[in-house]
């Protein structure tokens, strides 16, 4: 079966068309066109399934990809050559992403039709943005180069902005939307710089060209701003990830982004957009390695994973807990990238997308039912919302890293790789800090997720009014079906091909392998060494070359330092798995003690650590640091200062100045004439010679003798300067 552009593009075009149609005619359509969006994304899902199945069952190889290129901008004329080609690039990773995105999006769209119902004036708008967002995300996944990726990346940012600011009558929504857009934009700007840096070496930013350039050593010896260009580019690209995936220190936007409607949080701020940052880093993994910033990445991930988890401990807002848990989980993915756990990081991306989407949708279901987001006002809801509770529980188990659930499979593999990376790969033992923080974070995750569950669904209603207000949940197609489907996919078996992720049972035919491990490998730049630009083009390259087999270890999917030491990796994985199981359960147990049995009062922890607690509640003062100090005190003051200088000083004095000087001199000379000369100089004649305002007033003072004098004076000047020799 041949892939043509027309057989792939619909994935992107369906939601895009829905967007266009809804944007123009949405208001005139029945139900404001929501069916159009849902239908479109479902069609995309079907298409994605087709591609996925092709990739899984058709070839089942790591080397399989489709690359279509078409010319977007061609500035070449004569000797001046410049082209920008855009294209579609599908390999296994893309196929999986497509499936995840379309699947999650379909379900979330569906859920939205329930959740957003009755929202006056905004219902249609919501679906417009949702469609646009989905198409952008699909475009990003399909893109074959960083520029196109960047384009969709930014469009997603725009959609995120719009959806966070969806409730535009709330001032806070406005703040949150700007904060989200601007914070990610910081990362975006760096990403753009990274693209520029790469472009300056490679001549374009196609993934394959970048890999090829890396393998050919084109980056070597290039220096930018005193550091190696590779490091610079890698750092900049990773900054994109930091911004989009809400990593430290740009994590501040994501909690506020919860101002948006819950389905949009589920789709954008949990499942897809934030994961796009990780996706970018995965795509550019060879560059990260070349630029030697993997340690940096690992530490950023570790700090984020642990720090966000600590903050999540004290949140009382249901969505805020989820938001911080999202940040934390994204931190794990980033740790995965940093430590070389490529495959597991991507897997965690997918699993996280599923369970976090489900968590958010469940939260949405709860919030919609009780009309509050504050957990202290909930409690005991499991009787009123049984289906939601069940789904949410499954997801919580997954995220907490309980065995047999997807979260365990992926997170544990990341932690195992991190353990290997920190302890056994032969580098400094100091780096044990990364797995340590990872494990600590895992413990906290288990704790706070169950804290959330316990506070929400267990115990007795704390606010009877809210409880009474909540209707008993009955199965509804668009409310519960998405939850159930998503919850189903939190089972680890779908991802690992085994129950534990440790190869207990094999499901798929290609013996002894998890399908993830087979399908997803770190990009092997060596394969692209012989690649030349002409080799690609407008054709399907599937059959053209049989690439060399991958060099990495299939067993572990590990791509970091010393991947050959399979023994060590395996060893670390076993240790990691044991540790994380213990940790997960102990976390759950602690939560149980605190919030169900109440044998230990939370105050026991809070009181001695009062200031720490306060810091957590204030999210480590990042908002204060950024907004109050950096933006308000520094940036705005600086701006006001500059604006004042510009209009008040520069413009007034340097530009209008000569006129003002004239005026001032005029006044001064008048004063001089009237006061000084008249009172001090004899006779009040004003005939004293003052050079101060020679040209202006005294000169033209109407006193003819002064005129004479000036005449003579200047004349003498002329005569004396005459060069007679």
């Amino acid at each position, binding site marked *: 079966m041949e892939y043509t552009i027309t057989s792939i593009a619909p994935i992107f075009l369906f939601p895009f068309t829905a967007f266009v149609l809804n944007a123009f005619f949405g208001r005139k359509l029945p139900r404001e066109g929501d069916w159009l969006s849902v239908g479109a994304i479902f069609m995309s899902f079907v298409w994605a399934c087709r591609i996925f199945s092709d990739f899984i069952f058709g070839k089942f190889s790591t080397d399989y990809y489709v690359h279509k290129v078409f010319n977007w901008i061609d500035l070449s004329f004569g000797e001046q050559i410049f082209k920008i080609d855009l294209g579609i690039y599908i390999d296994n990773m893309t196929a999986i992403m497509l499936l995840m995105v379309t699947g999650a999006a379909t379900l979330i769209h569906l859920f939205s039709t329930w959740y957003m119902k009755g929202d006056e004036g905004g219902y249609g708008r919501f679906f417009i943005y949702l469609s646009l967002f989905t198409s952008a995300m699909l475009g990003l996944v399909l893109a074959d180069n960083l520029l196109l990726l960047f384009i969709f990346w930014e469009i997603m940012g725009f959609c995120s902005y719009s959806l966070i600011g969806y409730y535009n009558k709330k001032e806070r929504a406005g703040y949150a939307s700007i904060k989200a857009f601007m914070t990610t934009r910081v990362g975006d700007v760096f990403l753009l710089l990274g693209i520029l840096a790469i472009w300056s070496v490679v001549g374009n930013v196609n993934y394959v060209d970048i890999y090829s350039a890396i393998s050919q050593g084109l980056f070597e010896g290039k220096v930018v701003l005193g550091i190696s260009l590779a490091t610079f580019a890698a750092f900049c690209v990773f900054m994109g990830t930091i911004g989009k995936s809400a990593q430290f220190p740009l994590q501040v936007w994501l909690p506020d982004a919860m101002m948006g409607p819950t389905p949009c949080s589920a789709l954008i701020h949990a499942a897809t957009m934030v994961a796009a940052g990780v996706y970018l880093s995965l795509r550019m993994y060879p560059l990260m390695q070349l630029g030697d910033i993997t340690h940096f990445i690992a530490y950023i991930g570790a700090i984020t994973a642990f720090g966000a988890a600590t903050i999540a401990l004290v949140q009382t807002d249901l969505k805020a807990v989820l938001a911080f848990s999202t940040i934390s989980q994204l931190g794990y993915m980033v740790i995965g990238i940093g430590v070389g756990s490529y495959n597991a990081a991507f897997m965690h991306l997918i699993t996280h997308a599923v369970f976090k989407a489900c968590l958010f949708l469940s939260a949405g279901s709860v919030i919609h039912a009780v009309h509050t987001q504050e957990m202290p006002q909930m409690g005991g809801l499991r009787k009123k919302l049984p289906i939601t509770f069940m789904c949410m529980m499954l997801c919580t188990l997954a995220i907490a890293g309980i065995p047999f659930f997807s979260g365990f499979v992926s997170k544990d593999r990341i932690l195992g790789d991190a353990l290997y990376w920190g302890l056994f790969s032969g580098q400094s033992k100091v780096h044990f800090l990364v797995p340590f923080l990872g494990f600590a974070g895992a413990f906290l995750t288990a704790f706070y997720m169950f804290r959330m569950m316990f506070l929400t669904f267990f115990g007795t209603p704390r606010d009877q009014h809210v409880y009474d207000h909540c209707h008993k949940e009955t199965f509804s197609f668009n409310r519960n079906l998405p939850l159930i489907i998503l919850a189903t996919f939190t089972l680890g078996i779908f991802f690992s091909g085994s129950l534990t992720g440790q190869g207990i049972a094999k499901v798929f035919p290609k013996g002894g392998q998890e399908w993830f491990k087979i399908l997803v490998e770190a990009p092997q730049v060596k394969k692209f060494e012989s690649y030349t630009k002409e080799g690609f083009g407008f054709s399907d390259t599937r059959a053209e070359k049989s690439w060399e087999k991958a060099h990495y270890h299939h067993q572990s999917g590990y791509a970091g330092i010393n991947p050959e030491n399979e023994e060590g990796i395996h060893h670390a994985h076993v240790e990691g798995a044991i540790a994380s199981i213990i940790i997960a359960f102990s976390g759950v147990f602690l939560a149980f003690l605190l919030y169900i049995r109440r044998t230990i009062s939370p105050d026991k922890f809070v009181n001695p650590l009062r200031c720490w607690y306060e810091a957590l509640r204030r999210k480590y003062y990042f908002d204060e640091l950024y907004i109050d100090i950096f933006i308000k005190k520094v940036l705005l003051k600086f701006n006001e200062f500059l604006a004042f200088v510009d209009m008040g000083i520069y413009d007034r004095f340097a530009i209008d100045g000569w006129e003002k000087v004239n005026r001032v001199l005029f006044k001064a000379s008048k004063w001089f004439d009237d006061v000084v000369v008249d009172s001090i*100089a*004899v006779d009040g004649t004003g005939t004293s010679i003052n050079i101060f305002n020679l040209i202006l007033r005294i000169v033209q003072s109407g006193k003819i003798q002064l005129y004479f004098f000036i005449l003579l004076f200047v004349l003498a000047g002329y005569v*004396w300067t005459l060069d007679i020799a």
Partner: protein
Amino acid sequence: MFIWVLFLISALLILGTSVAALVTKNIMHSCIYLLGTLLGISGLYITLNADFVAVTQIMVYVGGIVILMLFAVMLTGGKEFVSKGQQLLGLAPLMGSKSTYVFGLFGALVFGGIFAKLISYIVKLPIDSTEQKIQSTVESIGKLLITDHVLAFELSSVLLLGALVGSAIIARPRRES
């Protein structure tokens, strides 16, 4: 010898009266000193063989302009504006005040500079100083006035006519609305 004597007398007259005209307090005296200077100059003209010019000088200047000036002084009251107690170093009040002196002195100095430069070159001029025979210039001047300088001669009448009419217009006491 006559020439030398005339020259010396005229020169002394000029120097003396001109300085006096500058420093005197009284405007009327000043006019009279001007008269002396003009006479001195006509004396110099005589030493320079310029008989016609000398005579015209006396006639026009002495007979016309100075009288005009005197009339003007009389018509305007002849005040010299000196305020007491503000004179230079409290010494003899000559004609002005400190500032006017500063002013006049400065001006003179400045122009003195020009002269210094000019004269430093003029003394180097190769000028023929041989004695010439004294003869009347009236006839030649008359000829020149109706040949070479006829245009200037004729057009100066326009000037004089204009000046005449102009002075009449301005000084005419008639008041219109």
